[in-house]
């Protein structure tokens, strides 16, 4: 049983680590702001959903599990809210998603 739990948490942690990394690459490499935000916020939620349960399996039943669950819930609530606020701020300032499509690959004028 312990081996199964260990293996499961190992899988969760490594897949979560991969998502973290993919999100990082996406934030750096994608051509304009809205696509970058897409990469960052999606992988943020996914990595949170994978890494924290992975740690939870290691922790077993203790106070730490409850705290990790709380961290998970709060990160899942606040992450998309922050993304919403950011996208809204960008839209407010007149940064149109379709405008920036024409400037793919031209980072200096993407604003």
């Amino acid at each position, binding site marked *: 049983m312990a081996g199964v739990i260990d293996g499961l948490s190992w899988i969760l942690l490594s897949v979560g680590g991969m998502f973290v990394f993919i999100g990082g690459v996406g934030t750096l490499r994608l051509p304009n702001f809205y696509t970058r935000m897409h990469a960052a916020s999606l992988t943020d939620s996914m990595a949170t959903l994978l890494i924290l349960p992975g740690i939870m399996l290691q922790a077993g039943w203790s106070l730490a599990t409850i705290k990790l669950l709380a961290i998970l819930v709060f990160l899942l609530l606040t992450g998309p*809210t922050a993304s919403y606020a950011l996208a809204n701020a960008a839209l407010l300032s007149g940064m149109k998603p379709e405008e920036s499509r024409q400037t793919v690959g031209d980072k200096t004028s993407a604003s």
Partner: protein
Amino acid sequence: MIIVSGIFLLTLLAIIAVAIVRTKNLFVAVMLTSIFSLLMAANFFILDAADVALTEAAVGAGVTTVIFLSALSLTAERERSITRKRYLAIFVVVVTTLVLIYATFDKPRLGDPQAPVHQHVAPWYLEKTPEFIGIPNVVTAVLGSFRGYDTLGEVFVVFTACIGVLFLLGSRRGPEYAVYEPSPGNTGLSHHLIPKVVSRLLVPFIVLFGLYVQFHGEYGPGGGFQAGSIVAAGIILHALIEGEAAALAAVPRAALLGMVVGGAMLYGLVGLAGLVLGGNFLDYSVLLSDPIAGQQLGILLIEAGVGVTVCGAILLIFHAFAARELV
């Protein structure tokens, strides 16, 4: 691994510091400052300072950014590029850096147990805390009891800074006394549905977490300074979403002033109670018949005083900036 990750985070820290100084856009500088704060907190945690990391998290994550942004919207967002000869400044800075780096070779290396810092009072604190005070968190014991004088001073610095901000920003010009009030028509971000719902859900939890940090400070990382900042961050969130007027309706300005003054007074009075009961100033052993229980009661009271003062001061500062912004 720990050393390597420390080195990685410190390198990022140095790079971000250069970027903060180089950028001309003050808004960008403020955003980079919050990355700087996150890196500092991670570094503190790696270097075994959980309490300090929690303080940096509580202050740097919300409060600093909000105050900086309020100040920016009251002044200018960009730095004007002025061509001025800075060779002298660069020369001075480079020479001093080299001298400082040369001087570090005389310091004990990181983690050296034989370093002079670890030889004198620190072992005494670690050894005597269970005996005299009986709480697990040595940092709280030193903060509240062994070095209570120091903390009293710090609380009064926060108090004084708050009074100073109120003097500078609080009152309108004119013969009659009047304070800037936020316009009731300003409803903040409440027309954004998602932040509104999430914040209504989270504000109670943030305040609850603040209280947990306050009262758990003797057993784990936490204490008055962190708790005050966290509760203040929760109420600042409420103010951002519902407008400052709503936040002032929830916690009125008079209550905030009472918190700042009352917290500092509570700290001082606990000290005086020690004198009255026949001990020294800020000696809590005499508060109860059992000296250890007395110490614990004293630390609980002064931590409460610290938390209340810090929370009130941060909120008053926030309201002083925010009310000017929307005139």
